[in-house]
């Protein structure tokens, strides 16, 4: 399999699949493909019925993943300005990717999702989903805007906007919190939500919040 990223503005990921090779992704990402590419779907049922319903109906995570079978070429895009990164996962290596940022993964990659709880304050963040990917295999993901990378030492902490989170190692811990703006009742009333991130592990941020980008363009996030 060969993966090439084309274009700099809204990059396209072009994958050349050999006979027998397979990749999977969310539906709606294909830009163009060779007619020789065969397709199938794969349901996401990890965690049983209850978790599947919660994930698909409440979380908006697709129930079906599209699988593309070689031989042939197929190109994908997340349809937003940004950067595309390719990552080779070693056997057992696990990374977490923000929802709707994964472009594709090879079929050997184990796919799951998990929920990052919010602080539960009324009218504020209620949490979000992340994709959990475990090697061996290759994954490709899209960062909206530019990607900023950090290597956190054990216990090293950062506070980040939840829309800025793109990728983290499974060893990096996340916790939502309220950041008051000043003292007293007014300070708490005007607080904003953020994430406390604690190492060790790799952390990548994106400079555009995809939910804001989708709202601005009226298009896909």
């Amino acid at each position: 399999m060969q993966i090439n990223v084309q274009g700099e503005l809204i990059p396209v990921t072009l994958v050349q699949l050999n006979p027998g090779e397979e990749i999977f992704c969310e539906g709606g990402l294909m830009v163009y493909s060779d007619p020789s590419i065969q397709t199938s779907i794969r349901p996401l049922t990890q965690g049983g019925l209850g978790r599947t319903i919660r994930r698909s109906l409440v979380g908006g995570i697709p129930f079906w993943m599209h699988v593309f079978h070689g031989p042939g070429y197929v190109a994908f895009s997340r349809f937003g300005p940004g950067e595309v990164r390719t990552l080779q996962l070693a056997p057992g290596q696990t990374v977490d990717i923000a929802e709707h940022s994964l472009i594709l993964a090879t079929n050997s990659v184990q796919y799951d999702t998990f929920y990052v709880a919010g602080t539960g304050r009324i009218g504020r963040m209620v949490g979000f989903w992340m994709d959990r990917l475990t090697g061996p295999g290759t994954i490709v993901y899209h960062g909206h805007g530019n990607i900023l990378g950090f290597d956190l030492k054990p216990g090293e902490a950062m506070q980040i906007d939840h829309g800025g989170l793109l990728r983290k190692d499974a060893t990096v811990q996340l916790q939502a919190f309220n950041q008051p703006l000043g003292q007293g009742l007014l300070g708490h009333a005007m607080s904003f939500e953020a994430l406390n991130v604690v190492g060790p592990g790799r952390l990548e941020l994106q400079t555009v919040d995809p939910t804001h980008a989708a709202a601005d363009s009226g298009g896909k996030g």
Partner: protein
Amino acid sequence: MKADTVGTVTPAVLVQLSPGEKILAAHEIMLHMDGAVQVHRKTLKHLGVSTAHLMALRSRGDSDENYFFAEFEGPGNVTFSRDKAGEVRILQLAPGQGIRLRSGHLICFDETVRYNPFVLAQWVVQKGNDQETEYLFADELTGPGTIVFQSFGNILSFNLQPGEAMRTSVEAYLSSAPTATVNVSWFAPMMGGMNVSAQPVLHLIGPGPVMVHSGV
């Protein structure tokens, strides 16, 4: 006309018009113009598009085809922008040479270019208990003259040989030569013989150049 691209991320197009030179564009995408430039209204009827044809397009609901273009007459400079991140292409069409361009991407064209909006593809989708027809509108432009258009995102170009085929998503289609055939097929992943989450895709068959773009 002499056209140049200004900027890279959300490019504008600077057109320099000689005295008496005329170009056509949608009026709402003008960014600025010199005071010397005159603006006239040019109805599609003047461009050879019949009222019946235009009404038929408008009746299909999703068409945002204008009833007229703004005609900019030199001397002077005019700048246009589609307010979207993408690439601008300036194309010289030889006499009789044509291109089919997805609707909503044309920026401007010489008055010598023949313009014809039409339905490039249509398909039926099931929405609840109802069936709705969806359309892909395109502009067919035929030389001689210069046309300027913009993609959303990056442009990927292909030159299909006779009989050579490729698939694109409906959103990714940008342009094709009139010699290339565009058919709608269904991207229908199968699971155990059951067809779910089918979506329309375009099946392009050469010969001719084809462009797709990476944005929406």
